[in-house]
């Protein structure tokens, strides 16, 4: 923020980058504990954390893509597809490790198709992933023949991934933590991570700096596809059925998480820490609105408003540039 007084040098009123997010989180927690006495209940908090993990994994994938100034609308469809594929494999008697590996591979491939289109065929990311969003949804429906797939007994042995606990903490939280640690290391400490930020801040300058822009762009979509498939398996595990109509709107959830977390839709700015914060804020809001008995319809209104607010704040900060 900048206040300008005629003739005097501009006075900058600014907090450290990203501070607003954590302040908002603290305020939100404080408000939530007032709104509902159940909010700070450990069981409820673990529930919130599980939500953070489920959606946060998608948010991390989306963060990679948005950092390069891209977008991936197909993640919700990939979630559904990998869930259906996993359910069908288990139903057919495949082992759980084989199911996991192949479902992840399928999601990764779909990410690779997105990457191919965006990085090499130069299709705008929005269009490319809009197309694959519809196509992959179609593949999932074809695979499941329009209905849901129930792997029966096999699903019980798989329940630990999404629904189980390890040391009294829901398993998905461990998965999410691992994803975050790896993502953080890649973004902050590798030359590939550096290339992602470079491509997102100025792809021409990146090219002239000898950075392989197409490979970098391709890779982020692959990562996003992989994480979407991982998330799809966790959903499958929790729900115990593969539903080709699941995951609708998850792409928007993931984008919201990344953007609230301070990852700029203009590329080159943001990171995993913010994404964790963004996922937490969204999960808390959903949780507290539930606890307060607000209808799911009104919840959507609130969520939409939050997206706009987050982007408005971001644009306000950018305007001084």
């Amino acid at each position, binding site marked *: 923020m900048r206040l300008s007084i005629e003739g005097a040098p501009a006075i900058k009123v600014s907090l450290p980058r990203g501070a607003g997010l954590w302040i908002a989180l603290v305020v939100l927690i404080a408000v939530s504990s007032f709104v509902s006495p159940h909010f700070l209940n450990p069981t409820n908090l673990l529930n919130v954390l599980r939500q953070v993990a489920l959606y946060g994994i998608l948010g991390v994938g989306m963060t990679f893509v948005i950092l390069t100034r891209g977008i991936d609308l197909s993640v919700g469809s990939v979630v559904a597809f990998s869930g259906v594929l996993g359910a069908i494999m288990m139903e057919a008697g495949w082992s759980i490790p084989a199911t996991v590996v192949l479902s992840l591979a399928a999601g990764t491939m779909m990410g690779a198709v997105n990457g191919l289109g965006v990085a090499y065929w130069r299709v705008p990311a929005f269009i490319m992933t809009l197309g694959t969003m519809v196509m992959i949804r179609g593949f999932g429906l074809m695979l499941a023949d329009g209905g849901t797939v129930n792997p029966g007994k096999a699903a019980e042995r798989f329940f630990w991934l999404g629904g189980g606990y390890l040391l009294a903490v829901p398993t998905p939280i461990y998965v999410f933590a691992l994803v975050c640690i790896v993502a953080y290391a890649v973004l902050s400490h*590798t030359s590939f991570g550096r*290339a992602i930020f470079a491509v997102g801040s100025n792809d021409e300058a990146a090219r002239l700096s*000898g950075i392989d822009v197409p490979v970098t762009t391709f890779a982020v979509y692959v990562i996003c596809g992989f994480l979407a498939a991982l998330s799809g398996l966790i959903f499958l595990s929790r729900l115990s059925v593969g539903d080709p109509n699941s995951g609708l709107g998850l792409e928007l959830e993931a984008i919201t998480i990344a953007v609230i977390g301070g990852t700029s839709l203009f590329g080159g700015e943001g990171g995993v820490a913010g994404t964790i914060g963004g996922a937490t804020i969204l999960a808390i809001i959903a949780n507290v609105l539930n606890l307060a008995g607000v209808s799911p319809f009104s919840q959507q209104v609130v969520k939409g408003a939050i997206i706009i607010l987050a982007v408005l704040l971001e644009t306000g900060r950018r305007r001084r540039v």
Partner: protein
Amino acid sequence: MTDAPIPALRLIGVTKSFPGVKALSEVTLSVARGEIRALVGENGAGKSTLMKILSGAYVADAGRIELFGEEVAHPTPAGMIARGVAVIYQELAQAPHLTVAENIFLGRLPRAGLRVDWSAAKAKARDVMGRLGFDIDPADHIQDLSVAKRQMVEIAKAMVRDAKIIVLDEPSAVLAQAEIDELFGIVKQLARENGVAFVYISHRLGEVFALCDTVTVLRDGKTVHNGRASDLDAQALIRHMVGREMGDIYPRRAPKIGEIVLETKSLSDHALLREASIVLRKGEIVGLFGLAGAGRTELLRALFGAAARSQGEVRLFEAPALVKSPREGIAHGLGLLPEDRKTQGLFLIQSVGFNIVSASLGRIAAHGFISARRERETVTTQIERLRVKTPSADAAVQDLSGGNQQKCVFARLVAADCRILLADEPTRGVDVGAKREIYDLLVALASTRDLAVLMASSDLPEVLGLCDRLYVMREGRIVKELDARRTNEEEVMSYAALH
């Protein structure tokens, strides 16, 4: 124009500054009804700023604009159009997928009730074309027309809007000779018969004499000459354009010139570049001079691998080299300082350190993991060596001054162990003090680090003051090689500008 006491357009003491640069300083100019006035000057003399003031896009800091004796108090783009000023830019601002008639009436289509009256629009457009003698069908789409025809559409649009003053920005740069002749005929006809006042901006001195009645010369944002075209010849005009004191902002140097490090034979690209053959030696600073669109940037980009070659050979360090991408260029020891620092050079939102190491990620990383220590060392070394003035390595590069931003791009190239520096307009948009520092830097890099420097510039004094040799380019070709110490601005300009 003799009995028109009130000029159609008059600028008095117009001044415009941008942060760090005074683009126009007390510019005075007047054009009478029916007069065609040439506006000439070197790149950066202030022509485009002046044009933007005439179009209302910029507002002058001081001075007056008078139209037919009336001062324009608060110029805005819409206001200037309404007062009859039409500015026709080189990059035409048209809607290519709309028809000629739609473009002509853009924003003021004739209406019948709530509907657009298309038949009236077409009829009116046809009528204007007929009056002007243009052979253009109003139903044609702009994208199907030649550039020359598109310019005619713009002129027709200006006439429909009842323009009394038309500013043409280098219209001939994109036209063939026959089209230029046709354009000149139209301009003369409109001036003589309709009394339209023209401001004709051009680099081509021949045109000034062929078309214009009067000439205004801008240099460094000041009016240095106002007079009749017939009182001047080309040499006198060039002297007005370039005639400034060289000063001593160029460092003295005793170059130690070594072996050939870069050699091209008949290098062409798919666009503008035609059969360019040059040599570059270690420790040498070679200039590449030409006016806008001469092919300087294209040559540098083709060498660096940023643009594809269509034919020709390049030898680097005495071995044939096929540089197909900037990545390969950097691996061969080439470094490109791009023309536009902000859109091609810098990661503006990132830190100084990020910008400096971005071309040497391989050097500061092992197995893909960046060594924080090596990164810090590289950044600190370069900031010190190039004397980048920054609060810290973590400061955003966009907060630095133009000169220091440019140094960050230099630092990136040096960090990547560049041995042949291809610098495209290295001092563009930096103030005089920073220019001097960049000159010192170029000289230091050439002499102490044995770099070979190929420097494209449209700033003639800079090329002459700094370089050992220079190549003059025109229309994509190298037209002359000159010893920078045994030539002068007039000679260089005569190769660059005259046909």
